[in-house]
């Protein structure tokens, strides 16, 4: 990884050194003189010190350093490079960009305009993340299986994950600069190769480390290693074209494919079980991703009829084929196919100069064509076990109908619409009574929601902007409990600014009330109602103020609240399965989650060449189960605060050179999970040069 970082640094330096001096001299004359070569380069290294997992995560997941002892590393973050080369006359010729948003993350973009209407894009994204330093210290008598098995099997290798994406797109517009209709308007070729190597399980940014760690205070024998080897390659390719058979007609075609290759895991839970049977009680439970292929095509047709009517028709067909082979079961392969269809039409009619009608319909289907059954030997079918614990969706189809009316009057736009959906599913296994023993929710095969909405927005003046929207939903049937049978949603916002736009304020408000009480778990011996009752609130205010051209302040506050009431249902299951008794263990089993976020910032030009940028943010997040009876434990609670204060300074050394200095102090306080608490100091300094 150090090599990669050095390579990046060297590349930036080499490109910077190669910049034409003439271009820099021209830039010195100011923006009035337009240079054929323009761009910028920025180097902004960062020093930091942290404690606790949140601090660890928030420092952009720099995972490569033994940096628990203080300010001991020099990292490149937020580096950037952009070069833009123009043709004579201002047209683009070449663009090169590099950004380095996270440590060990290099993103490159090269765009070349070979001629009018001919463009090539090449993108490269390389992201490395180490794991071993990512793991927080384990508690006494516990250990991290990820680390242990890596050390046992490949001590010299370090736990890591690397993502490398390459993408190339070429676009050709043969009739870009010719008036009148030309049938072939554009052709686009796409190719992408995405590679993932390393180890899973893994969360992306700002995740939590528990998946890789034996939790504190839990019997380690209950835990399994989760360090499956990861080696995936995804190839994506496509060809698209735009055709026009008349001035009122536009047709878009696209054919695409994808190949997903996954090599079998080399470290699996079975390996864990072989080393320590106490640990893994289910050695065959491997979560791997078999190879699969996707191919399909889509078409959309836009046709105008006169000047008032436009019709859009589109269609999509996509097929996924999967060949699976479980390495621990001899000859246990199967083939799976999922086919998706979708077709839709939108009709737009200009009723008058100020009224517009839209009607739409869509039909979608997803069908799993996999062969399903049982086999005494081998595994030619998707499943060998009919005693499934989950409903398996064989087919799902939806028909959607709707429309909207827009009416524009002076300074305001009024819109109203309706959307009705009829959804139907076909399950391999029925749901309902027999789902109770396994502790499942009820799952309906039909859903018929209807949504009505009204929105109004206005910009009566340039400085005033407001909008409000309300939605109402009702459904005779819904698929599942969390699919509300009734919902009311209201949102609104308004922004008022001064004539110059330098001072202003905005407010926002949101409220959602949704409920579903039509579900019940039942058996021959009992019945227990279920409940979904959610209220969600959001209020926010923000403002900005300029005292002259040198001083600007801005601030924002938002409060989000979620109040969720449910019924806690327990099923008293005996070995003789049909005799189960669902019972309402607790009514009013609830959850509350809230977040308050405050952020303040300013830009203070204390001198023509010096600007200070102070900022402060506070985020208070809390949540957890609210219960009168159910015993709780800290893990189900969320109680963390995040304070952050920072100051930055930009010093304009010359018209082309800007010097940056930044300092940040963050404090993470977590009452529920002390490991997350900690602090972070960050300092960065560097410069930007424009040429």
């Amino acid at each position, binding site marked *: 990884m150090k090599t990669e970082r050095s390579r990046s640094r060297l590349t930036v330096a080499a490109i910077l050194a190669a910049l034409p001096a003439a271009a820099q001299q021209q830039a010195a004359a100011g923006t009035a003189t337009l240079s054929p070569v323009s761009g910028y380069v920025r180097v902004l290294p960062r020093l930091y010190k942290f404690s606790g997992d949140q601090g660890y995560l928030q420092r952009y997941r720099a995972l490569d350093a033994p940096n628990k002892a203080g300010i001991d590393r020099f990292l490149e973050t937020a580096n950037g490079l952009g070069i833009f080369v123009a043709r004579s006359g201002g047209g683009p010729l070449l663009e090169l960009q590099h950004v380095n948003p996270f440590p060990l993350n290099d993103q490159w973009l090269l765009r070349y305009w070979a001629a009018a209407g001919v463009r090539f894009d090449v993108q490269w994204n390389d992201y490395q993340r180490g794991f071993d330093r990512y793991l927080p210290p384990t508690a006494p008598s516990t250990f991290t299986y990820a680390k242990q098995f890596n050390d046992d099997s490949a001590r010299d290798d370090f736990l890591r994950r690397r993502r490398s994406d390459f993408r190339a797109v070429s676009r050709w517009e043969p009739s870009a600069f010719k008036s009148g209709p030309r049938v072939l308007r554009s052709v686009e070729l796409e190719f992408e190769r995405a590679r993932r190597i390393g180890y899973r399980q893994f969360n992306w940014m700002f995740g939590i480390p528990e998946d890789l760690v034996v939790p504190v205070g839990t019997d380690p024998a209950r835990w399994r290693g989760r360090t499956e080897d990861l080696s995936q390659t995804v190839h994506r390719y496509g060809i698209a074209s735009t055709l026009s058979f008349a001035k009122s007609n536009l047709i878009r075609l696209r054919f695409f494919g994808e190949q997903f290759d996954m090599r079998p895991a080399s470290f699996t839970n079975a390996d864990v079980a072989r080393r320590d049977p106490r640990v893994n009680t289910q050695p065959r439970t491997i*979560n791997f991703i078999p190879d699969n292929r996707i191919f399909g095509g889509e078409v959309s047709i836009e046709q105008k009829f006169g000047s008032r009517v436009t019709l859009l028709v589109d269609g999509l067909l996509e097929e996924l084929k999967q060949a699976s082979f479980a390495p621990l079961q001899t000859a246990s392969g199967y083939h799976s196919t999922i086919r998706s269809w979708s077709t839709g039409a939108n009709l737009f009619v200009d009723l008058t*100069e100020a009224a517009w009608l839209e009607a739409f319909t869509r039909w979608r289907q997803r069908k799993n064509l996999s062969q399903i059954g049982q086999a005494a030997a081998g595994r030619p079918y998707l499943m060998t076990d009919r005693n499934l614990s989950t409903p398996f*969706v064989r087919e799902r189809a939806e028909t959607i109908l709707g429309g909207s009316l827009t009416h524009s009057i002076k300074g305001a736009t009024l819109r109203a619409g309706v959307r009705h959906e009829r959804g139907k599913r076909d399950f391999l296994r029925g749901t309902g009574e027999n789902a109770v023993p396994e502790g499942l*929710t009820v799952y309906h095969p039909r859903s018929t929601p209807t949504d009505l909405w009204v929105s109004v927005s206005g910009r009566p003046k340039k400085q005033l902007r407001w909008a409000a929207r309300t939605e109402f939903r009702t459904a005779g049937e819904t698929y599942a409990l969390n699919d509300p049978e009734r919902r009311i949603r209201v949102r609104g916002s308004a922004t008022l600014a001064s004539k110059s736009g330098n001072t202003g304020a905005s407010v926002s408000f949101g409220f959602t009330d949704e409920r579903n009480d039509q579900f019940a778990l039942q058996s021959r011996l009992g019945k227990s109602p279920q409940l979904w009752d959610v209220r969600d609130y959001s209020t926010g205010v923000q403002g900005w103020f300029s005292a002259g051209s040198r001083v600007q302040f801005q601030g924002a506050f*938002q409060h989000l609240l979620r109040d969720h009431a449910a019924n806690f249902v327990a099923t008293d299951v005996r070995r003789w399965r049909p005799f189960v008794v669902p019972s309402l263990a607790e009514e009013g089993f609830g*959850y509350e989650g809230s977040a308050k976020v405050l952020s303040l910032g300013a830009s203070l030009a204390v001198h023509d060449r010096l600007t200070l940028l102070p900022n402060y943010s506070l985020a208070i997040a809390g949540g957890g189960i609210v219960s009168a009876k*159910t015993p709780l434990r800290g893990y189900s609670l969320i109680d963390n605060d995040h304070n952050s204060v920072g100051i930055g300074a930009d010093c304009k050394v010359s018209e082309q050179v800007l010097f940056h200095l930044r300092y940040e102090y963050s404090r993470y306080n977590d009452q529920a999970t002390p490991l997350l608490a900690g602090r972070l100091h960050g300092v960065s300094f560097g410069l930007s040069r424009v040429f």
Partner: protein
Amino acid sequence: MTHKFTISLAVALVLGLFAAGRLPAQDYAGSQSCQGCHPDQAKLFEANVHFKAAEQRRFDAQGEGCESCHGPSKPHADDPVSKKPAVAFAKGEEGRSNGACIACHRTDDKVNGYSRSRHAQSRVACVDCHASPHSKVSLLPARTAFRNEDAPLRVVRHLKTPSADLCLSCHTDLRGRFRMPYRHPLGGQALACVSCHNPHQDETRQARQANAKCFSCHEDKRGPWAYEHPPATEDCASCHEPHGSVAPGMLKTAQPFQCLSCHSIAEDRHGAEVGGARFSRALFSRCTACHGAIHGSHEDRHFKK
């Protein structure tokens, strides 16, 4: 109703003009006339990528130079005080100004449907988000806050500010979500609103089901699974709040409540005699501690990993 047109009408008018053929040459003043009164704009326009296109009249656009966007403006040139250009990109004529942009950008599938999108119907103009062709797109790093949000502008996107800031300036109710303890890494160039949302098109035109967008990054959750968890197969938003949440994993509520709000708990293996002595660790932990393959499994019908 003399000065307000709906967006759709403006688009229809612009496109209708194409069907009618080019307007007579006498309606066009020519760019030379414009430069006489607007020398600064003309100079900046020459440095913009649109200049070349305007010069050569791309696709079905009418006019040349300035009037390829502003429309036939001879009346304005003859009487600049009381007559405006045909398309002035001013407040109240968003439909016409959008139509001027889309006349050229019709072949771009991502942009083509903008006139019919919810944004356009709410009178959001292209130039509300994208910089004017008269402005030389700044190559200076945007000077904003610390914390890696001072991302350089994309050189050819012509956005006024980094895209996340643009979206959140109107969608203020989502600003706080991206300060939550668990959220997608918006900003910092890792991810933008447009990574998931297309501001130029409406969801009614989306042929694919809800999860397709999530699976484009989270391929390992796609399956198909031998043992599938239907909410994960059909709608990730059943459990996740993708903009940000106080709960780990961007769940709507923390575990075990998230699971128990739909599922019952079977006592024989989880032990949950609430209020009595027989409650078990299942209530004290995350369900996914054992049911780790909750998005689907090829081996275990209980999603145990």
